[in-house]
C-alpha cells in the first residue's frame, strides 16, 4: 500500500528542492541538490557528519539563505520567504525548548503567534500533550524533564501548529539506544497517522532505512542516491552508498564478462563488466561451510578463520582469503558454538548478492 501511495504522489511532489546550493565564504556545503518529496511521506537525509544535512534542512526552513537554487512547496517558490511565513515545524537536534516557559507554554507558543483563540489553544495543547504522552507534565520547565521527555515536547511543539512540512535534525542522537528505538517507532507512527510530509536528517543508516519511505544519501554536499530503502541497500548507485548503507567487503578484481578474478578465485557477477572493478559482498549474505563443501550455482571462496567477535545476536568472523581479510556475519544459535580461529572454511553467497562497480581512481 505504501508503494502504491508513493508511486501515485511521485509526479506531484509537495516539497521540491531545485538545484539548491550553499557556499560559506569559500566552502561549498551543498552543491546542486535536486530532491522531490511526495506529500505525506517521510524521507531521510542520510550522510556522514559534515556532509551538509543540517545546512540543507536550514535552507528548507528558511533559517539559512540558499546561495543558488529554489525551495518549492506545493508548487510555490518560497526560497526567499522568511522562516515565520513558511509554516514548517522544526525539531532541533538540541530540542531548543524555551527554558523560561513551562511545557504547556512551549507547546502553545506557535498557536499564540498564529493568534488562535484562547479556548482552542488550550484544547489543541492538551491534544498534543496526550499525543506525545506527556500528561501531567504540563507545568514543568524543560530543565525538569529527561532527554526523552524534552524530545517529546519539541515534537509536540512542532506538531501542534499542524505544519505543512515537519523537519527533524538528528532528533534522536542525544537519546540512549533503547529510548531511540522507542521514539523511532513513535515518530513514524505519528507522522503516518497525521499524514505529514517530513524530512528527517540522520547519520544513522539503520534509522533512515527503518523509518523512512525514501532515503537521500548525501556525501560532501552532493546527492549520491535517492531511493527506497530496498533500492539503496540492494542496488546502491555507487561504492559510497554501498558502504555507507550497511557493511560490505570491498575486494579489488579484474572482470571479463560475468566472471571477475578476485585474488585466486573466480567470482560470477549478475551482469557483465570489463576491466578493473571493485566487488562488494555484504558480510551477512555469506554462508560459511566446510572447506570441501560445494555450492552449485553460487559464488564460493575458501579461507581460514583468523578472528572471532561474538556479539550475542551475531558473531562476526574475520577470515583470511588468500591474504585478504573478509568479514562474515552469522546469526548465533544455542545449538552450535561459534567457530574457532584457525578453522579452514568455505564462503559462499548468491550471485545476485554480488555487487560490482568500476574501480575508482
Amino acid at each position: 500500500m505504501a508503494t502504491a501511495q508513493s508511486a501515485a504522489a511521485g509526479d506531484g511532489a509537495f516539497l521540491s528542492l531545485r538545484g539548491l546550493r550553499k557556499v560559506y565564504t569559500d566552502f561549498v556545503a551543498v552543491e546542486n541538490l535536486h530532491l522531490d518529496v511526495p506529500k505525506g511521506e517521510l524521507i531521510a537525509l542520510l550522510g556522514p557528519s559534515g556532509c551538509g544535512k543540517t545546512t540543507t534542512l536550514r535552507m528548507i526552513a528558511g533559517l539559512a539563505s540558499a546561495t543558488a537554487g529554489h525551495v518549492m512547496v506545493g508548487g510555490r517558490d518560497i526560497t526567499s520567504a522568511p522562516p515565520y511565513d513558511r509554516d514548517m515545524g522544526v525539531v532541533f537536534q538540541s530540542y531548543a525548548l524555551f527554558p523560561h516557559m513551562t511545557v504547556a507554554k512551549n507547546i502553545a507558543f506557535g498557536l499564540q503567534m498564529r493568534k488562535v483563540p484562547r479556548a482552542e489553544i488550550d484544547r489543541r495543547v492538551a491534544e498534543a500533550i496526550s499525543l506525545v504522552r506527556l500528561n501531567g507534565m504540563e507545568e514543568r520547565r524543560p530543565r525538569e524533564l529527561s532527554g526523552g521527555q524534552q524530545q517529546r515536547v519539541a515534537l509536540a511543539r512542532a506538531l501542534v501548529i499542524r505544519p505543512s512540512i515537519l523537519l527533524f535534525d538528528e532528533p534522536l542522537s542525544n537519546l540512549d539506544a533503547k529510548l531511540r528505538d522507542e521514539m523511532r517507532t513513535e515518530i513514524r507512527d505519528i507522522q503516518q497517522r497525521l499524514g505529514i510530509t517530513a524530512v528527517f536528517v540522520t547519520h544513522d543508516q539503520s534509522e533512515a532505512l527503518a523509518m523512512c519511505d525514501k532515503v537521500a544519501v548525501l556525501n560532501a554536499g552532493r546527492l549520491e542516491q535517492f531511493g527506497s530503502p530496498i533500492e539503496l541497500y540492494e542496488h546502491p548507485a555507487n561504492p559510497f552508498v554501498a558502504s555507507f548503507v550497511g557493511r560490505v567487503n570491498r575486494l579489488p578484481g579484474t572482470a571479463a564478462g560475468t566472471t571477475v578474478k578476485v585474488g585466486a578465485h573466480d567470482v560470477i557477477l549478475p551482469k557483465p563488466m570489463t576491466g578493473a572493478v571493485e566487488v562488494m559482498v555484504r558480510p551477512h549474505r555469506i554462508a560459511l561451510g566446510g572447506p570441501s563443501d560445494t555450492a552449485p550455482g553460487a559464488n564460493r571462496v575458501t579461507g581460514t578463520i583468523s578472528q572471532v567477535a561474538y556479539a550475542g545476536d551475531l558473531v562476526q568472523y574475520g577470515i583470511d582469503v588468500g591474504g585478504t581479510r573478509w568479514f562474515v556475519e552469522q546469526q548465533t544459535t544455542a545449538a552450535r558454538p561459534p567457530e574457532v580461529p584457525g578453522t579452514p572454511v568455505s564462503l559462499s553467497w548468491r550471485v545476485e548478492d554480488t555487487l560490482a562497480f568500476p574501480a575508482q581512481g
Partner: protein
Amino acid sequence: MAQADDMHTASGRFGLVAMLLAPIILVNSFVFLLPILNLFRISFNEALPGGGIGPGGTLENWYKLAEDSYYLEIMLRSVGMSLLVTLLALLCSYPIALYVHRAKGAWRTFLFVLVVSPLLTSAVVRTYGWIAMLADQGLINNALGLLGFSPLRLLYNQTGIVIGLTEILMPYMILALLAGFGRLDPRCEEAALTLGATPVQTFWRIIVPLTAPGIALGCLLCFVLCVSSFITPRILGGGRVFLLATEIYDQAIVTLNWPGAATLSILVLVIFGAALVVYTRAVNRLN
C-alpha cells in the same frame, strides 16, 4: 560508621572553608563593616559648630532629615535621576551587548576591549570631555548653530549630568548584561521564528526574557553607582544641582557637619538596601 565518616569529612571541609574565608572576613570587618557601624553611631551624635562631634544619643540629625523638605527633595531628585540614567544606559547598552555577545573570534575580543576601554580612563577626564561637548560653545551647540537651531542649555543642569552619567556608566551596564546573557541560545530564537514569531515578537517573547538576569544585574549595578556618584554630578552640575552624594560631600567637607553627613550616608545605604530587595525579588520571579 559510614555516617561518622561523612560527618568527619563534612566538618573537615567546613573548617577548611572557614580558614580560607577568614582573611577576607577579617579585612572586610575592619575596612567596611566597622566604618559603617561608626557612621551609624555618628548619625546619633550632636553636631557642634566648627566641625565638632558632640555627645551621642540624640535623634536630632534624623529629625532634621525628616522635617526639612529640602532633604526629601534631593533624595527624590537623586533616586529619580538615577532611575532615568539607569533606563537610558540600559537602552543604549542593550543593542551593543547583544551585538558583542553574538560576535565571534577576534572581532568579539576587539569589541570587548573597545567596550572596556573607557574604564581605563578616569571618570574625571571623561567628564571634562563632556564639558567640551555640552558647553554653550561646545561641539553639540556649535553643530546646532551651524544647522540654524538655537542653542540648548546642556551644561550645569540635570540634563548634562544625565547625559554624562549615562555614558560613564555604560561600560558597567554592558559588562553586567554580557555576564547575564548566558542563557541566550540562538537555537531558541530560530525555534521561535519557525513557530511563526516575527523578529520583533522573538525579541520580546524570547530574547528579553532569556536576558532578564543580565538586565536585572546591570540595572542594579548602574543604579547603585549612579546614586553614589559624586564627581560627574559635581562637575557637570556646576554646583547648581543638589543631590545626595554632593550634599554628603558639602556637609562633610564644606560645613564640617559630620553627624549630618553620616545621617545622609545611612540614608543612601537604606536606598541601596531597597534596590537590593527589588533586585532579589525580580531575580526570584525570573527563576
